[in-house]
């Protein structure tokens, strides 16, 4: 027993990711943690999207299953798993069967290099960002396969649309990413890095998030990425591939039950993945706000309280809503459940106040908070914007974002060169 504690301790004090340390056991643990967390995040996202969208649209959203519909995603998941798995008679069986798995695999594999903290990543790759972009671009294959294998017009058009869209926006996205990577080379050696952890460390070293670097160049590059990533994930206002009013459901029209839910899972984890890239490249990854301006130990302490306070706020929200529940015997279970959920959240919040825990966890907290901000943006877009038309979408990708990206890249390179050669020879 003591040895186990010792082992865990030795790991906790390590300053390497398990992958880099070659520690298979911890790598496996991390894989479990990341994918478990991801699944929970997707489930939570499902509920949050429906709730937030509902409130934007003056309605209530799910309210029946569990208090305030909290158990709705679980009910949905069970329903989807129990549904009949239909395959069209004329479909290409093998391809039809494989497509959702490829999409899910591509969406999940990218999380191998996502840095939730300086040591909180499954591994750190030398080509981290390249790996992320490459693997996430593989999901196009799954979409094309799904559309083609369904042997039906709507899925085929949906698949062609979405793959054309993803391939086009990858270009602009890549240019924006490169301009951020260029900024990592502004150090003494003059060499940049593609490693996800290295990028965040470069922002730490330079004392500046890259979104504010070379103002407004960093901001423009971030903007390009933020637009391209919505297109890349096929979400509103770029959700042409699944435009329900035109193509019913796009490439997954013919899918049902479990396989459909895989597409759903892939879509949401892809959203989280691209948001993580944006957070890593421009928003300082796991770094807390104002790492350079407010860098005294007092501020460190103040910011280390944030995770606990957030959870306590959630708990308070739960209690508030539990108090507001109708005082009727029918609602007793729901009230108790909501209060119990609040208690759990509050306990987590209290645990997060422990300095030892808070030190390890606040990186993850800030990363997750930033990603959550992006998730809210996604929902907000969906509630606000109409849908682009395909030619307008292509026009925007090739005629607006691509030239902008090229310009930003060239300007960034020029400014970086000037800074290296002239101002700091």
């Amino acid at each position, binding site marked *: 027993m003591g040895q186990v504690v010792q082992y865990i301790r030795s790991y906790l004090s390590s300053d390497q990711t398990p*992958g*880099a340390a*070659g520690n*298979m056991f911890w790598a496996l643990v991390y894989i479990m943690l990341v994918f478990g967390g991801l699944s929970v995040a997707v489930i939570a996202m499902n509920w949050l999207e429906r709730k937030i969208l509902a409130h934007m649209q003056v309605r209530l959203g799910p309210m029946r299953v569990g208090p305030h519909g909290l158990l709705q995603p679980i009910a949905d998941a069970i329903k989807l798993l129990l549904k009949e798995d239909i395959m069209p008679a004329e479909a*290409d069986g*093998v*391809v039809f069967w*494989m497509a959702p798995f490829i999409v899910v695999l591509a969406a999940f594999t990218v999380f191998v290099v996502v840095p939730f903290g300086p040591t909180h990543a499954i*591994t750190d*790759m*030398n*080509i981290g960002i*390249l*790996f992320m*972009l*490459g*693997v996430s*671009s*593989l999901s*196009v*294959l799954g979409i*094309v*396969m799904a559309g*083609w294998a369904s042997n039906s017009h709507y899925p*085929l058009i949906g698949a*062609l649309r979405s*793959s*054309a869209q993803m*391939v086009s926006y*990858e270009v602009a996205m890549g240019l924006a990413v490169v301009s951020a990577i260029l900024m990592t080379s502004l150090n003494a050696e003059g*060499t*940049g*890095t*593609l490693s996800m952890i290295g990028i965040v460390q470069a922002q730490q070293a330079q004392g500046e998030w890259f979104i504010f670097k070379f103002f407004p160049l960093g901001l423009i590059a971030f903007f390009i990425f933020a637009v391209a990533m919505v297109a890349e994930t096929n979400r509103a206002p770029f959700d042409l591939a699944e435009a329900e009013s035109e193509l019913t459901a796009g490439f997954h029209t013919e899918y049902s039950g479990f396989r459909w839910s895989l597409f759903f899972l892939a879509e949401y984890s892809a959203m989280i993945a691209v948001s993580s890239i944006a957070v890593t490249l421009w928003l300082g990854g796991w770094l807390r706000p104002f790492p350079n301006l407010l860098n005294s130990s007092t501020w460190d302490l103040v910011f280390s309280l944030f995770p606990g306070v957030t959870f306590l706020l959630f708990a308070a929200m739960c209690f508030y809503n539990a108090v507001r529940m109708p005082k009727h015997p029918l609602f007793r279970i729901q009230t108790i459940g909501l209060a119990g959920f609040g208690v759990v959240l509050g306990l987590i919040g209290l645990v997060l106040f422990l300095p030892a825990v808070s030190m390890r966890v606040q990186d993850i907290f800030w990363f997750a908070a930033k990603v959550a901000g992006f998730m809210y943006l996604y929902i907000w877009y969906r509630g606000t914007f109409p849908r682009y038309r395909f030619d307008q979408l292509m026009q925007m990708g090739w005629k607006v974002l691509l030239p902008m990206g090229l310009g930003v890249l060239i300007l960034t390179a020029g400014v970086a060169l000037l800074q290296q050669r002239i101002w700091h020879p």
Partner: protein
Amino acid sequence: MAPVATPFFFYLFAAIMVIGGIMVITRKNPVHSALALIVTLLAQASVYLMLYAPFVAGVQIILYAGGIMVLFLFVIMLVSIDRSIRERQFNSQWVVGLIAATALGGLFIAVYTKGTNIFPEHALSIVESDNTQQVATMLYGQYMFPFEIASLLLLVAIIGAVVMAKKRI
């Protein structure tokens, strides 16, 4: 990040690659061929990683699997394949082709059995950790001119492809 269990993974990926390659040239349906080719390419990317060439592996995934193969799938879906599936799959001089390939294979076997000794037993060690930086330095230093030529080639290819495929220019 040192490769682990190299022999196991080598044989695994080699088997995947060879089976994938066989599927590519034997499938009736070009979509199945393309998918087999994608599997082959991804396995090859893993082999690159074992050869301490992570950047090439990344390029392989992002360009080959994510770019070129999507192009292939696109074209396969554009041209209707129903007819070609029902047609004869191999051309009339397949015997000649097989004989030529066998001869080439024999040549390879001969060369490799003769030349076993010219390859060093142990590979020289190269640093993997800054592979990308080194590739970048060489690409933009020593190989600057070929790099520019390659970009020119790509430009020509783009124009050529557009001219060829567009209905009305």
